[in-house]
């Protein structure tokens, strides 16, 4: 067991190093510091201004190997952007934003709360709606109810999320005037008014795909032997669905869903910038528009870190519950 956890952690750490390498290639090798300086201060500055900008942001080092090193001190040999990048990211010293010099870490901390207040209810509500509706559809499998819900799902899946947001904001916020069109207030008494439209639209936008997916999971369970046994011993159809099928189908559904939880922290890029919610998604959009590479880098890194951590936790929980996972991993390794 301990060996499994250690190996899993080691692999997770290796993945983190891999993610950092991808980020290094993208943000230092492909778009090099000269590029960043040009995008940050424009094309017509003097070479001294560029040099000063690079020095201020810590980008004035060689890329891979410091050519001015000598054998007497190891320090200068590793005095490069690559080592710097790994050092900063792994020790969580993210530094300051490239565009407005605010500390990145405080902004990320401030953004996580609003992001979660949007994505968490959206996630829970979407899950409840999806499971209820797909169980309902699976109950009426093969009838016209089933077919018409499937058609609606197919139609719903084919609409771009941008259209859902624009249309929903227009309809609910502007024509019906039920809720404010955009804005945010962390006060718990009024927060619901601002989050109502995005949550409503979010659930609507994703139910097509989830209902279709969960329906297949339910239908897979419906034909199992234990369901036939339950029917044979005289269970009613509703009892079969709720007591037997739902419980067993929840396991694969939850396995899929747990992996989505880390992404809740990242927030939703579209929803946050449309509805003026000051979360991490809005921060990402701001970073894109302002060519703020250091903030963007940090957000990508934190997203990946949360995902890897979530995956390790799920794997360990699973191996505790089901020894086959542990043994399977050992057999394949």
């Amino acid at each position, binding site marked *: 067991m301990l060996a499994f956890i250690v190996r899993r952690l080691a692999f997770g750490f290796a993945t983190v190093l*891999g993610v950092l390498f991808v980020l290094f290639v*993208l943000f230092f090798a492909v778009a090099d510091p000269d590029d960043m300086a040009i995008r940050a201060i424009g094309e017509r500055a003097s070479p001294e201004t560029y040099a000063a900008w690079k020095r201020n942001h810590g980008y004035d080092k060689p890329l891979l190997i410091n050519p001015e090193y000598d054998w007497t001190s190891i320090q200068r040999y590793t005095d490069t952007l690559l080592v710097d990048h790994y050092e900063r990211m792994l020790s969580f010293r993210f530094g300051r934003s490239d565009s407005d010099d605010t500390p990145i870490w405080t902004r990320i901390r401030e953004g996580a709360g609003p992001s979660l207040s949007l994505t968490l209810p959206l996630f829970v509500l979407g899950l409840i709606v999806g499971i209820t509706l797909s169980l309902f559809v699976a109950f009426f499998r093969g009838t016209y109810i089933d077919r018409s819900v499937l058609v609606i799902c*197919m139609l719903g899946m084919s609409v771009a999320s941008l259209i859902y947001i624009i249309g929903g904001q227009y309809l609910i916020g502007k024509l019906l005037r039920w809720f404010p069109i955009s804005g945010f207030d962390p006060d718990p008494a009024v927060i619901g008014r601002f989050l109502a439209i995005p949550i409503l639209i979010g659930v609507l936008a994703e139910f097509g795909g989830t209902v279709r997916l969960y329906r*297949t999971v339910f239908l897979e369970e419906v034909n199992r032997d234990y369901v036939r046994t339950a029917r044979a011993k005289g269970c009613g159809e509703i009892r079969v669905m709720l007591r037997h099928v739902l419980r067993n189908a929840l396991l694969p559904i939850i396995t899929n869903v747990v992996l989505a939880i880390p992404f809740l922290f990242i927030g939703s890029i579209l929803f946050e910038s449309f509805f003026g919610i000051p979360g991490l998604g809005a921060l990402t959009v701001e970073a*894109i528009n302002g060519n703020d590479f250091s903030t*963007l880098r940090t957000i990508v890194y934190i*997203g990946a870190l949360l995902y890897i951590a979530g995956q390790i936790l799920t794997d360990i929980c699973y191996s505790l519950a089901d020894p086959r996972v542990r043994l399977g991993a050992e057999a394949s390794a």
Partner: protein
Amino acid sequence: MSWVSNIIVALLVAGGAYVWIWARSNRLWREAMRALVRRRRFALIILGVYVLIGLLDAVSWVGGDGVQGVAASEARSVIDRIFKPSIFREKSYSEPFAQVEFVGGAALTFPGQHVLGTDILGDDVLYKTLKGVKVALLIGGLTCLVLIPLALLFGVSAGYFGGKIDDAVFFVMSTLASIPNLLLLIALIMALGKGTLQVCFALGITGWVGLSRLTRAETLKLRELEYVQAARALGVSHPTIVMRHILPNLAHLVIITFALLFTGLVLSETILAYLGIGLDGSWGRMIDQARNELSRDPVIWWNIVAASSALFILVLCVNLIADALRDILDPRTLRERP
């Protein structure tokens, strides 16, 4: 540069004809095609119309009809020649089939001829919507051209050879999979720069992991089958085995994934367009530009409705076809049906 896209059109038509003839000669594929046509006749016809518009927009040549206001060296496509955008335009907004301008009420140059109205610059919206067809097909097609070979290369070599190669590919896949998709996409486009090729390349890099996992798992199964073992025992080389026995048995997976990916790619381009890193002339860009027009009074609705309906119909057709393809080509899902 017009000859490049003309050659590509010729290659696409020739390739399509070749695949058609080949598929007709093979009994299994012929039956699959018949089943698909029987089940999704309308979707196939509409998709065909889209592809035709896209191809007509890709065939272009210089000069010809002596239209004023166009640079002599500018190559114009068939769609451009039908609509003549440099002449067929108004001063500003006009409603569909309008006789007068939307603001002010002055007489139009072409009253009643703008089927979908005109946009803020007076350009015909139908023309702009039809131009978007090529961009949408390009996003799906070009990206899959990057994505499918990449996924097959990694997936098949990992599944077929196993061992160290499998470990390495697994590591690369889990590294890329652990970065949230949209964030990786944004990071790639920010680093590579904006442009058609860059965006398609970035979409390809972010999307190949899923198909690669599928092909790896399937190759692992195929590798153990008797006829593959027999071929290896007879001394057939690895490349030949992969070409003769592995790849043909992955074709159905590739086709289904291609259809599913296509819609995902076209839809995610709208998000990129909103973030300002999409493609020029795409429907996403049209929607993004039109979203503020909804807050005007009276509302200017035809721009956003035209772009989003064109997008919706294309995605719906491909979704329907993908759904039918999965039922036809992948017998495992048949068992799940009630």
